[in-house]
């Protein structure tokens, strides 16, 4: 057996390390959120869900932005790896988006008195979820792999262009809703709260990186397997002739 290349063993080490890092960061954030961060004056302990909710939202947007870039890169270069990255990032983004949509109502119920309101951010997140769920559905229903990659790339671009328009339209639609939590560069947060918030961001970034590190190689293996199957079928056909 040949020795694995240094790059490969580094990737393998990273793949083993990342889940450990995610776990560590998650535990750290739990500590920061529940014991370190100050108790919010008006909302009380309920507010602590913010440290899990808002960072997930941020990283979710980032993930869809990666899908957007990967989609452009795929159409420009036609390298399968960009398609795999786009798909992996969408799946991770959709997971994070689901976390946002689940944690939001948990907070909204005691604070706003309702699980759901059609406020700009909430609605935009929901529409985002729908668009990228549709993206994965199109992938599922398209059999030809190249076609699937192209359709997905087009959707990755069109879907992302839609996001600011959705946000703007929902904002005008609902009128001026008070922004309950204003996070502009952390300026509106007390220091201990900032720590917990940053801990949350670090956790979700690590989680995203971890999922990508697992999913992209898996996508490559799927690609390889498909190629081998085609080869085997071609050889079988040649043999039977």
């Amino acid at each position: 057996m040949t020795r694995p290349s240094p790059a490969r063993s580094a990737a393998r080490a990273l793949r083993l390390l990342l889940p450990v890092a995610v776990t560590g960061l998650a535990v750290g954030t739990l500590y920061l959120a529940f014991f370190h961060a100050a108790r919010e004056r008006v909302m009380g302990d309920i507010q602590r869900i913010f440290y899990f909710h808002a960072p997930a939202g941020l990283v979710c947007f980032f993930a869809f932005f990666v899908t957007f870039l990967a989609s452009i890169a795929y159409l420009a270069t036609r390298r399968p790896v960009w398609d795999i990255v786009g798909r992996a990032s969408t799946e991770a983004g959709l997971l994070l988006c689901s976390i946002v949509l689940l944690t939001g109502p948990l907070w909204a119920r005691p604070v706003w008195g309702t699980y759901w309101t059609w406020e700009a951010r909430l609605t935009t997140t929901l529409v985002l979820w729908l668009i990228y769920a549709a993206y994965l559905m199109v992938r599922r229903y398209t059999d030809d792999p190249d076609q699937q990659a192209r359709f997905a790339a087009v959707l990755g671009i069109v879907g992302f262009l839609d996001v600011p328009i959705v946000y703007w339209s929902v904002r005008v639609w609902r009128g001026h809703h008070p922004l309950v939590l204003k996070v502009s560069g952390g300026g509106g947060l007390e220091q201990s709260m900032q720590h917990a918030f940053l801990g949350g961001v670090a956790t979700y970034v690590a989680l995203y990186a971890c999922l990508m590190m697992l999913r992209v190689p898996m996508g490559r293996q799927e690609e390889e397997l498909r190629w081998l199957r085609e080869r085997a079928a071609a050889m079988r056909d040649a043999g039977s002739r």
Partner: protein
Amino acid sequence: MSLPASSSPAARAALNPGVLPGAGREARKAVLVCAKDLRIEWRNLDNLPAMFFFSLLILVIFNFAFDFASSDFRILAPGVLWVAFTFAGVLSFGHSFDLERDADCIQGLRIAPIDPGSLYLGKMMANGVSMLLVELVVLPLSALLFGADLLPVAAPLGAVVLAHTVGFAAVGTLFGAMTARTRRGDVLLPILLFSVSVPLMISAVKSTSALLSEGTLRGEAATWLTMACIFDVVFVTAAYLTFEYVLEE
């Protein structure tokens, strides 16, 4: 390349390089594609009656669901009308590319000397015109059914309807081309269309209802009309640029 003797002067002009400058030539080809689709529709009336009937049916169904008689036309009508128009649109977007699957016509279009973007624009125009035709019949009919007077706002209402129809046709045509080549395309098309066109649906309903209650295209209605125009520009451009990847074999 020599053209068949039977081709029309318009086709000759469109395919003859040197007659028109580049952009004008492509625009001409788009118009030809649109005319072709509309001519096919005119000759066999395969889709328009279904679109019309479907949107009428939606009005009737919603009438039972919401009981228009006991509520204000201006509150319910915009939503109901736009649901009727866009659902009818879905029939058109799907059909537009089913048409080309017959006898592998899409292959012919692909090898024809037409820019994929122009092909897209042509298809989009044909879909838009089909939607507009349905709207042209259904709007007066709804005014009649619900006892509302739309005549004083006819002109601004036309602008609102046109701006939003372009947007729906822009997105619908792109997704129609895509879902014509997937499994369960008939299911995927509305899923894609209605998730991406959420902002357009909002602005369609909002601008129509602002117009119906205020009677002019100022204030709220104007804001929404601007928003629809931005949507149109963004998505026509995006679809124009990406259509070749959707069309590719």
